[in-house]
């Protein structure tokens, strides 16, 4: 045994040089993609891109951009929607955590039901969710129809909802969608905090449980979920699919405006588009910087509360906690209704205003949509499976290679992998698109799949990393001592033992790919239609039944993936027959 372990160490030492190079090559992929994307947005933003006729540096793109009508209100709506949505989403997520899962285990009964609903909201793609929410809150939407049961409403109220010019409907959509994301990010992080003992200690010192949670757990939890919070903020600023459905129309948000400019057949418009993309990058960076400053200021202001010895919350605080809980519940209910309104519309035969439910049921919309639904479904799935395979292989290789590295190198590598979620995707994807254009590629299937992989990879890596590191190392050691080669150990011991995690990571990879809108639009060159892009494109047409069909299909495919993963995980968790 000792001899075999020595052999293993010698093998590792000999292999570590090569494995470091292989690992660096993996890290280089996202780094290079983002770097080249940013370079090729920076150059055309200042007028230089010979392939498109820009041969000298100039400020003309910026002059064109500033002359663009509505730029200022587009920026305003972008910033307002993100900075209204994020604090609310974060606050509600924290309240929900303190309420239903204070020590990371979700108890049965109400907490379990609430957590199930939240995971369902999380697993619903942004595009479908936004469409459902639009159906729900529109003047002739389901909410008004439900209200009409008790109130005298016979015509739809005259309200500019969704798509209000301030971006508040978009903010509402972002809150409903980011709250579950932050909740589960927090729930995962909570398990690292020894919360049960901390809370019992707090109770032992006389602290009311809710207050103990906010004094002992929340500050450390926030430090652990900072990255997901930043990713959510970056997403809020760059969401195109949600903004097309819920955000203001003319002018739209900055991200939508940038995409509009790239659709202009006049290629000279790429120069102001690049300037706009660069502006979006700067806006994202300054938003993240502002958020960081707010973090510091708020932490400073709240710190004395830790030491004031107060054991129970003041009545005002307690009262606002109740309001917060009610809001969190309401947002879950709203989210659930939004999702349900998709299949409901797709099956509605006749749904006159202000009836609360349609005359059920008709498959006419499904029959009408199916012939055209088939193609985007096929393309979405092909791309999603390719992307997931790439991301899984990449993540397994990454985790296997980083084992011999120092902690700092690992952290650095992980940070690079997360970059696509933080850096403005509008900016670097537009750069990659301009680069491809300059090289003579108009975009298509392969660039789309590769760009999807860039976004799916960090999620797959994060989902695998924890189970990977938690696996008892003695399994592999004993297999090696039985004479199995490292490859065999990986394939026959480690991966089978991690099957539940692999299945979940695969479902997550598929879900990310199936949800992506912007990369498909920018990298597909107009030739790739997925369920996400079709659903959004159809939404402007106004046929709610067909939109309902596409939204339902997009969501159903993703839910099926998670369900299969759950089923595989349960089967794999059963002990194999000896």
């Amino acid at each position: 045994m000792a001899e075999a372990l020595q052999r293993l160490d010698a093998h590792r030492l000999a292999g570590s040089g090569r494995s470091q190079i292989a690992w660096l090559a993996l890290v280089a992929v996202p780094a290079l993609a983002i770097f080249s994307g940013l370079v090729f947005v920076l150059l055309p933003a200042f007028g230089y891109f010979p392939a498109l006729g820009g041969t000298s540096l100039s400020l003309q793109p910026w002059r064109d951009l500033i002359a663009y009508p509505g730029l200022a209100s587009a920026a305003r709506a972008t910033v307002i929607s993100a900075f209204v949505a994020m604090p609310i989403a974060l606050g509600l997520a924290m309240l929900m955590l303190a309420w239903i899962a204070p020590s990371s285990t979700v108890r049965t009964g109400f907490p379990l039901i609430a957590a199930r609903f939240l995971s369902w909201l999380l697993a619903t793609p942004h595009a479908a969710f936004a469409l459902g929410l639009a159906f729900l809150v529109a003047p002739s939407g389901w909410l008004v129809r439900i209200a009409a049961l008790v109130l005298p409403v016979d015509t739809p109220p005259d309200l500019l909802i969704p798509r209000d010019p301030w971006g508040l409907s978009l903010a509402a959509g972002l809150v409903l969608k980011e709250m579950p994301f932050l909740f589960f990010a927090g729930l995962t992080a909570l398990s690292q905090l020894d919360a049960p003992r901390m809370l019992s200690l707090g109770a032992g010192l006389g602290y009311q449980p809710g207050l103990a949670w906010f004094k002992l757990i929340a500050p450390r939890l926030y430090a652990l979920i900072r990255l997901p919070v930043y990713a959510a903020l970056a997403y809020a600023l760059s969401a195109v699919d949600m903004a097309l459905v819920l955000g203001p129309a003319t002018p739209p948000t900055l991200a939508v405006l940038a995409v509009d400019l790239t659709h202009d057949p006049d290629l000279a418009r790429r120069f102001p588009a690049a300037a706009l993309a660069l502006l979006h990058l700067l806006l994202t960076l300054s938003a993240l910087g502002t958020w960081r400053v707010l973090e510091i200021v708020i932490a400073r202001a709240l710190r004395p509360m830790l030491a004031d010895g107060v054991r129970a919350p003041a009545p005002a605080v307690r009262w606002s906690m109740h309001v917060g809980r009610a809001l969190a519940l309401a947002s879950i209910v709203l989210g659930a209704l939004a999702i349900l309104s998709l299949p409901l519309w797709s099956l509605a035969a006749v749904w006159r205003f202000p009836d609360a439910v349609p005359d059920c049921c008709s498959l006419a919309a499904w029959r009408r949509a199916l012939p055209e639904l088939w193609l985007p479904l096929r393309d979405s799935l092909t791309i999603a499976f390719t992307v997931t395979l790439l991301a899984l292989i990449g993540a397994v290789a990454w985790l296997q290679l980083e084992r011999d590295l120092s902690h700092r190198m690992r952290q650095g590598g992980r940070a690079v992998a997360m970059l696509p979620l933080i850096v403005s995707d509008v900016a670097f994807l537009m750069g990659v698109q301009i680069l491809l254009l300059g090289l003579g590629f108009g975009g298509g299937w392969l660039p789309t799949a590769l760009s999807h992989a860039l976004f799916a990879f960090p999620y797959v890596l994060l989902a695998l990393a924890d189970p990977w590191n938690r696996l008892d190392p003695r399994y592999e050691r004993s297999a090696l001592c039985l004479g199995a080669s490292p490859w065999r150990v990986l394939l026959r011991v480690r991966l089978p033992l991690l099957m539940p995690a692999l299945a979940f990571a695969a479902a997550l990879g598929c879900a990310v790919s199936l949800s992506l809108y912007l990369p498909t639009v920018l990298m597909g060159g107009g030739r790739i239609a997925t369920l996400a892009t079709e659903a959004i494109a159809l939404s402007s047409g106004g046929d709610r039944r067909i939109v309902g069909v596409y939204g339902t299909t997009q969501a159903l495919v993703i839910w099926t993936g998670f369900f299969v993963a759950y089923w595989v995980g349960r089967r794999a968790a059963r002990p194999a027959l000896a």
Partner: protein
Amino acid sequence: MLELRDVAIRRQGETLFAPLSCQVRPGRPVTIMGPSGAGKSSLLAWLTGVLPAGLAGEGDVLLDGVSVLSLPAHRRRLGILFQDDLLFPHMSVGENLAFGLPPGPDRNTRRGRIDQALADVELPGFANRDPMTLSGGERARVALLRVLLSEPRALLLDEPFSKLDLTLRDRFRSLVFQSAPHLPVLLVSHDPQDSVAAGGDVLELRPNERHTRIR
């Protein structure tokens, strides 16, 4: 006085140990001994009101003649010291102690009490230190101070000495017993030395048998 009456912990209907009764008076610590898995920690978890799901406790617990079972964990005022010091890593030493101190009257008074308490255990000027930079013995003393400053009505000790090395262990043990002469102290341990140092009654926890009173 802390009194346990016919206390038992059940897991899926089976009791972990035979019903336990004892009276703990200030200055006469009671030690409960038992091998690991005997239910010592579950017993303390139940006393403090944080028994995990799947376990159920029965019997009664009285503080000065009044049952505490109907009170939620944070109103029982049973201070507990664990094997690990569990200093809150996001607070300074002083903030950890202030967290234990009841609220009021004002910042300077609080600060003064904390500095005095630290000086009393030979840790003068430690208030602004990060708990991570303290040695094991120093951290243990801060954890003890935090509990004592919270003015508990009884002190529960969950093997708080077992992770300290031998010399530290003796010093910290005597510090604990000296600092709480006014409190009922209940200690669970598997180290016979603890019971000797505690000096009071010793009960042995045995699965489904009568508890033998060693002394």
